């Protein structure tokens, strides 16, 4: 009689459980023929790709929102299509032209991604034209999560500052996605290829241990990093200053928000520059804005120098901030070598679970408060905003802002059983660039979803997560709206002279104002005429350099001296 145990054993003898490892070893062997140790010459990078990548592979080409494995992108683009084709790209950022050239050439076929800022227009055209088979547009954490479940890369092409001959990597301040990508690839029998700016005898610190790295390609020039988080104070308008004043006095102060994340727009840059001036006069120092999940924004330098900020954890770094960060290790996370250690996955998690507020801009907000950065011709993706700008349903620790928001949403609920709420604030001016209205009856994202036959419209932040909308017209507190109609009128009430705003029910908006659901500048004791550029702690990039004691070294496009 065959017992079940025997059957199991018999099955085991007939089956191999190490196909993936064997496949990896075969790929490694093919690649090793081109390498000395782990080191492959840059001119052999394309041959290396052809040796280790198979048609249809899932490939993560490290494109973060800042750091780019640009040499490896070009090398992949040049492969012989008889050897490498139809790849499934699983990468957080589609940022370089080469990332899309891969699809034009047929090297890649399918795409799962999170962010496509600079390529937002071209990616839209290629999706419309059927050049790209779209998996989904993710948030960062969501894509990282799928690396470990159903989108595990067979090959990862990553970027680091330096490597030693063993393959230990120093990623420098822009560590970003690298540890996550390497973890998912290397521990599931994938191949990891790193482009590095230089090979050294000893790396300044080990960000990625050598046994997770299979090949090193020395690049002839440093990998590309985009200064994505630098906002020139000179470009901040009076309207943005007014909106920032409303946010500080209407939201930061009453909720005592200490732990938060800021988006990258000019409105939040204005808030950062008003902390040491306007907020200081309001007596808010020490009470708000002390702990951040945030990239090293240059605009925050004056607040840091004035003693406002206690701690910042970062997704990535920012060009020109390295020396400043080194000198301010009390504020930033730094390695034994002194330079910043960033980590996108951890910082996104921090923003989701340990921050009480997200405040950021968007391009369109509808009558339910849904917001999207997708417009008819641009698909910018989500990046991290949806993780920051979402109520974390798994959160269990109390904090005053979180509890207060929960009380406002459900004043009659039991205090001990009531969930708190993350403050999710959308900030912007009623009209954006070229007089395009921020508020719309219907998001362009819906038209796009219909056109591309997507199952889900690309909504950046869902209306039921949004708690406040701030414009130059005032603050709308959506937590205090009791039904969909109130919510719609609260949104119309701060939509100014857009069509959405002009079609408001004036009487109902007045009632909402009396209840404090809508608060106008005068309700908050703010005179719009006081909104003046002289209130900004820094009015130019040069001012920021001065505040930093010369430690901040802005990239050339931000220098006019």
């Amino acid at each position, binding site marked *: 009689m065959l017992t079940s145990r025997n059957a199991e054993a018999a099955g085991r003898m007939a089956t191999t459980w190490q196909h993936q490892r064997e496949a990896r070893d075969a790929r490694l062997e093919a690649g090793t023929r081109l390498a000395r140790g782990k080191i492959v010459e840059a001119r052999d990078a394309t041959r290396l790709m052809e040796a280790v990548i198979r048609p249809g592979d899932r490939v993560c080409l490290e494109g973060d929102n800042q750091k780019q494995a640009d040499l490896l992108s070009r090398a992949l683009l040049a492969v012989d299509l008889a050897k490498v084709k139809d790849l499934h790209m699983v990468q957080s950022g589609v940022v370089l032209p080469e990332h899309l050239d891969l699809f034009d050439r047929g090297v890649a076929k399918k795409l799962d991604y999170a962010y496509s800022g600079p390529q937002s227009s071209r990616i839209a055209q290629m999706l419309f034209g059927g050049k790209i088979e779209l998996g989904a547009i993710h948030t960062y954490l969501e894509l990282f999560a799928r690396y470990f479940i159903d989108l595990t890369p067979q090959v990862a092409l990553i970027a680091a500052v330096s490597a030693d001959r063993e393959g230990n990597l120093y990623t420098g301040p822009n560590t970003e996605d690298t540890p996550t990508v390497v973890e998912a690839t290397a521990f599931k029998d994938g191949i990891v290829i790193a482009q590095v700016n230089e090979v050294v005898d000893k790396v300044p610190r080990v960000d990625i241990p050598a046994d997770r790295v299979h090949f090193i390609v020395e690049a002839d020039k440093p990998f590309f990093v985009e200064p994505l988080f630098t906002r020139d104070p000179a470009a901040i308008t*009076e*309207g943005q200053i007014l909106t920032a004043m409303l946010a500080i006095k209407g939201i930061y102060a009453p909720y005592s928000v200490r732990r938060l994340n800021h988006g990258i727009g000019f409105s939040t840059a204005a808030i950062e520059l008003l902390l040491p001036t306007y907020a200081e006069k309001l007596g808010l120092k020490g009470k708000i804005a002390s702990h951040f999940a945030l990239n090293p924004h240059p605009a925050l330098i004056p607040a840091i120098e004035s003693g406002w900020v206690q701690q910042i954890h970062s997704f990535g770094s920012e060009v020109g901030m390295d020396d400043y960060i080194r000198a301010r290790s009390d504020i930033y996370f730094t390695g034994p070598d002194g330079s910043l250690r960033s980590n996108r996955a951890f910082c996104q998690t921090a923003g989701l679970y340990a921050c009480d507020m997200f405040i950021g801009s968007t391009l369109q907000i509808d009558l339910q408060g849904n917001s999207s950065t997708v417009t008819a011709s641009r698909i910018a993706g989500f990046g991290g905003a949806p993780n920051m700008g979402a109520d974390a349903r798994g959160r269990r620790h109390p904090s005053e802002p979180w509890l207060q928001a929960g009380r406002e949403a459900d004043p009659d609920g039991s205090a001990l059983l009531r969930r708190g709420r993350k403050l999710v604030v959308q900030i912007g*001016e*009623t*009209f954006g660039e070229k*007089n395009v209205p921020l508020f719309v009856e219907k998001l362009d994202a819906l038209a796009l979803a219909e056109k591309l036959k997507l199952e889900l419209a690309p909504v950046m932040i869902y209306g039921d997560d949004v708690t406040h909308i701030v414009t*130059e*017209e005032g603050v709308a507190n959506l937590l205090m709206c009791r039904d969909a109609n109130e919510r719609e009128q609260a949104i119309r009430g701060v939509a*100014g*002279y857009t069509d959405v705003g*002009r079609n408001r029910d004036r009487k109902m908006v007045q009632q909402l104002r009396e209840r404090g659901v809508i608060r106008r500048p005068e309700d908050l004791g703010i005179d*719009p*005429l006081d*909104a003046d550029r002289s209130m900004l702690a820094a009015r130019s990039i040069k001012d920021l350099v001065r505040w930093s004691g010369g430690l901040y070294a802005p990239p050339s496009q931000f220098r006019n001296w």
Partner: protein
Amino acid sequence: MEDLSFHHQARTRAGGTRQMAIIGVVASGNLEVLAERVLPETECLLEIKTAAEGFGEVWDAVVADFVERYSPGGLKFSINDGGARPDTVSLRLAQAVRLMAEDEQ
């Protein structure tokens, strides 16, 4: 270019004694406002030359709210608009009223 004109009754006379004030610049997305104290105390007139056509309804709404909020009786406003956004228009008009509220220098 489009010319628009709005005539309103104001509740009260605009404060101050200044006879004339000018603020803003004619530039893309901005506007220049010339305010003159030349009308009867409860009259208010706005004459607009704008580079952006087809926004009459929005101007109507912005001007009505402005008159309601600041009651600029006695003032005539001549506006050269370079396609400014409504919030910028509101701000410049309010700034003009504030300048007029200052004493004659």
